[in-house]
């Protein structure tokens, strides 16, 4: 069956294609594994994703990064599938595979021809309960992760700045710790830590299986039962509830790192969506982010990069969903000759203007039109559709609220956006990080800008 978006009408007031939900099927196996199937028959391919409801926010002091380290270790073999074989078999089947870890969850995926689901399920279900974690393989892989940390964070001034911003903005919530973990914790980590994590969280009753693509839901359920059904449910650790107390005053931090240009990040604490029907603030903040930075001619780029030329780069963003709270972030690089103080003042001026004068009907409509079009565009990617379902399931909202969220976004009013800005964009709620660029040591003051080989 083809996807049909029959309730679309023409013109600017497009309706959201709710009918896409019609192709989503779900079933929970006896062991608690939730299976969700999204049929999409445009191409003879599929994606399998397994999402575990355990991310870096579930870690403890001293073992930060273990969720991500275990994710790496999941490719190191089981009793029946020796080290290296998982990737080899997927590759031999023409597949692509990878995995990712976030604050909130850890997920694994394979993309394959539609005939290869049995293989993918056999391999993925096997490592859900048969992983063999050896000290030898751990000893090698932890070094890979340390290299990853060096590459991603330690040698990337903007990433390092973001890590320190999170550690400053959050004092109680575990979002203060980086997903990849502190280097000290990685150095001290043992195979037993990874094993403990695996034993605690890797159970069918803590996972969601998603299959999307050119598949038949009934056949997928049957195959899932055969492969995953035999894995026993296990009691899960008590999941702690975390909260970040009100900040009560602005925080500022400076990072010195080798760079040419200074950089500024301003982050305001915000809630995330908890009740898709009754919450209003997260939707208003989503729209606010779109009005500030949803397109090239949105407020921030127009005012700061194009007109005032105070910034060479500027961005604003907000993620409305997550197990924990979120932040509304403004981030920019001052233009040559401008300071971060100039940039901060200019950003504040824009925010104040919005709080004082509100937003126009055109701006509001523009954001909503983009949301609607993006709902169609996302149908071009089976992978992304599965991602969205997995994320919503893993953070506890569930994929069924997706159409509710779209409807609620369309209902956001100009007044709500203005109120949201007034409520959230307050100094007491703000953490500011500044990159203070340092010269590269061993490098003479450059004359022409050429790099000289040594």
């Amino acid at each position, binding site marked *: 069956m083809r996807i049909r978006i029959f309730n679309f009408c023409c*013109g600017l007031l497009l309706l959201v294609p709710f009918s896409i939900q019609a192709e989503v099927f779900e079933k929970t196996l006896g062991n608690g594994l939730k299976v969700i199937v999204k049929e999409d028959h445009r191409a003879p391919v599929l994606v399998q994703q397994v999402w575990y409801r355990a991310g870096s926010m579930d870690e403890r002091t001293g073992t930060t990064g273990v969720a991500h380290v275990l994710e*790496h270790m999941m490719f190191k073999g089981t009793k029946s599938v020796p080290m290296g074989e998982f990737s080899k078999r997927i590759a031999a089947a023409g*597949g692509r595979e990878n995995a990712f870890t976030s604050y909130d969850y850890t997920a694994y995926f394979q993309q394959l021809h539609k005939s290869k689901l049995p293989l993918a399920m056999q391999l993925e279900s096997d490592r859900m309960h048969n992983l063999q974690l050896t000290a030898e393989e751990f000893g090698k892989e932890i070094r890979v*992760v*340390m290299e*990853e940390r060096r590459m991603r964070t330690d040698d990337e001034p903007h990433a390092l700045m973001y890590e320190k911003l999170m550690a400053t903005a959050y004092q109680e919530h575990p979002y203060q710790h980086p997903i990849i973990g502190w280097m000290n914790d990685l150095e001290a980590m043992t195979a037993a830590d990874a094993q403990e994590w695996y034993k605690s969280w890797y159970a069918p009753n803590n996972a969601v299986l998603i299959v999307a693509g050119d598949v038949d839901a009934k056949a997928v359920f049957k195959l899932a039962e055969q492969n995953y059904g035999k894995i026993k449910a296990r009691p899960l650790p008590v999941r702690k509830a975390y909260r970040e107390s009100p900040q009560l005053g602005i925080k500022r931090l400076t990072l010195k790192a080798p760079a040419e240009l200074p950089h500024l990040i301003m982050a305001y604490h915000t809630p995330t969506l908890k009740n898709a029907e009754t919450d209003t603030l997260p939707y208003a903040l989503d729209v606010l982010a779109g009005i500030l930075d949803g397109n090239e001619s949105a407020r921030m780029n127009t005012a700061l990069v194009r007109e005032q030329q105070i910034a060479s780069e500027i961005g604003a963003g907000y993620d409305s969903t997550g197990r924990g709270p979120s932040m509304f972030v403004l981030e920019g690089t001052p233009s040559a000759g401008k300071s971060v103080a100039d940039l901060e003042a200019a950003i504040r001026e824009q925010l104040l203007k919005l709080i004082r004068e509100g937003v126009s009907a055109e701006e509001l409509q523009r954001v909503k039109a983009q949301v609607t079009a993006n709902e169609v565009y996302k149908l071009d990617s089976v992978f992304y559709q599965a991602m969205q379902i997995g994320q919503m399931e893993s953070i506890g909202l569930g994929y069924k609220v997706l159409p509710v969220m779209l409807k609620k976004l369309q209902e956001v009013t100009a007044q709500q956006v203005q109120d949201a800005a007034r409520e959230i964009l307050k100094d007491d709620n703000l953490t500011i990080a500044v990159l203070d660029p340092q010269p590269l040591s061993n490098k003479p003051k450059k004359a022409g800008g050429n790099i000289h080989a040594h």
Partner: protein
Amino acid sequence: MRTNWPIMRTGVIFLSLIINALYSSASATPTIQHWQAASGARVYFVENHDLPMLDVAVTFPAGSGFDDPAKLGVAGFVNGMLDAGTDGLNEDEIGRKLADIGAQKASQFDPDRAGLSMRTLSYPAQREVALDILARMLQRPLFPEAILAREKVRLIAALKEAETKPESIAAKAFGKAVFAMHPYGTSIEVPDVEKIQRADLENYYRSHYAAKAAVVALMGDLTRAQAEAIAQQLTEKLPDGAASTQLPAVTIHIQSSEQRIAHPASQSHILIGTPGVARSDPDYFPLYVGNYILGGGGFVSRLMNEIREKRGMAYSVYSYFMPMQQPGAFQIGLQTKKEQADEALKLTRATLREFVEKGVSAKELQAAKDNIIGGFPLRIDSNKKILEYLSVIGFYNLPLNYLDDFTVQVGRVSAAQIHDAFKRRIHPDAMATVVVGAPEVK
């Protein structure tokens, strides 16, 4: 927004289609319709009504390789400023009007190609506005003086920033070491940017954005008649420029070189390479399949196995051929902490040497073919991916059955061909090496 961005298990580079080239299998490939518009532009169209959307790309032989060596950077500014203002629409209006209909514009720019693409809903109310704006950006760009001045300042800032980043420093030194003065290895410097004038942009645009050199790719919810009209609409008012569409030849054989550049980063960034292969080269298939085994095949490649899986020395290690109009680079890359950089470099070189001298096993070859051929359907599973194929097929004048023929070609590659092609093309004793953040010499 970065708050909830997950981090991936690997830095395996998902190389774009232009690098990976095109595959086919027994499974159905999209039917490509091809014609020449009255304007002279060559058109490639796949009709598909599954989704109410349309993707369009118009590209020209106007990438950075076509820059006048005395006016480096002009090609990039022309491409980057197509949306900076056009007949009747300033840059803010372009951005706002596209956002109003949810259309998405993007630029294509590499050493060979330059162009614009657009994704829009296919309902007339959105499609017509999006295509009208695209047509005007392509055919009536104004290159406003004030915006050029602003963008020059921004680019200079970005170039200075890049000079502090080990990956940028490495890429620049590598380009120079592999390609010397050839445009594939050229980097723009601050003084180049400073001297760019609006007239340079005008001239470049008029000579390089010619209708007869244009390739129009259309994918999605259109009829053939609509596609024909749109292709003409997007190209009929293009200039009739006469610039050459050929880039100079690349000097294939280089001297061995090793540059060690100091940097305070904790890791060394290592690049090793040489000029590789042109897209039209008969060696391309053996080299592509061979490289999958050496360092292109993600977790199952030899480099990945030696450097990462066996020894935990790097998060990311890869190799690739960049098939371009002229031979693009063959490149191996990795990052590792300074203290072990020399050891990693030695190991990488030994892996390459053994590969070139001894070739691949029958088992490795079979595994490579299984993945490349079996994975073909994933390469054409979305409108976005198919659009890119259409552009590449058009730009490089590949046959219309290229998709269908590709797996046949891959299937024919033998271990002897791989051995032979690597031996002739890759000389481990004559490669360029760049190490940024190099360890102290002992």
